[in-house]
């Protein structure tokens, strides 16, 4: 150990000892507090979990209460579908109504008149 090392060692030990003198808390006390903090943390997690579960239950009950019960299911009528160029999506509470005309809405495909070995490109 060099001279500077020894001086540093002595100075730091001395200063640290003074700074820490009489301040070190009892290990058992800190340990017990740490253990009780874990217990409290688990209780908090359980409480939050319980509240979340209760909120989810309330939400399920609420939505089931207000769900439309007189909903009439509609299906595609093949005859009606074949006799018309337009189609309306069956009513569904979750989907917005969508209406389109198969001639009006579908873009016109560009046809090529060039041919290669008898086949249109």
């Amino acid at each position, binding site marked *: 150990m060099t001279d*500077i*090392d020894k*001086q*540093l*060692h*002595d*100075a*730091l*030990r*001395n*200063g*640290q000892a*003074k*700074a*820490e003198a009489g*301040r*070190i*808390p009892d*290990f058992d006390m*800190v*340990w017990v*507090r*740490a*253990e009780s*903090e*874990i217990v409290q*943390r688990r209780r908090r997690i359980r409480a939050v979990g319980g509240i979340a579960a209760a909120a989810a239950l309330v939400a399920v009950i609420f939505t089931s209460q207000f769900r439309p019960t007189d909903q009439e299911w509609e299906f595609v009528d093949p005859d009606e579908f074949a006799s018309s160029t337009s189609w309306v999506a069956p009513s569904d509470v979750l989907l917005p109504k969508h209406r389109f005309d198969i001639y009006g809405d579908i873009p016109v495909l560009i046809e090529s008149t060039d041919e290669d070995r008898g086949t249109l490109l």
Partner: protein
Amino acid sequence: MRDSDVLDNNPHVSRSALEAMHGQVFGWALSRCDFEQTVAEDLVQQAYVELLTGRARFDGESSLKTFVFAVVQNLSRNRYRRMATRLRLLQKAGSEPGADVADMVELGEHDELWKAVQELPARQRDIIELVFCRDMTIQEASIVMGVTTGTGRVHYDRAKKTLKRRLAND
């Protein structure tokens, strides 16, 4: 190591081993928070919580002391990160800085050097404290500080040069 002594979530850590190094760990925590007693107690308590819950899991890759010191170091860093905004606001408001650590202890034979150490940049001060006061090697101290051994050695050399100059001037 008694079986009953081993932590459930940390099979390589025993309560008695932690008790044996409690004083050193607390001293390290004190110097992490400008020697504020309550903050240091809280840091040590949090470190024990991390060990008890297994969130800080010791696998025997370093010494237990190095590991626990690193846990305290990380917790104090997290704490300072959380406080950073608040501290900046306080500084803007022109509040008085905290008491000088060197002023908190009674003056004595080596106090000029002790004061010089406290005035070093944080990493230089840390490595000097870990090596000279906590009996760690530069490698162990570097692990605690979360830097490579090479970086730790650079901080150590710079700190010693500064302190040497300070001693020569005195």
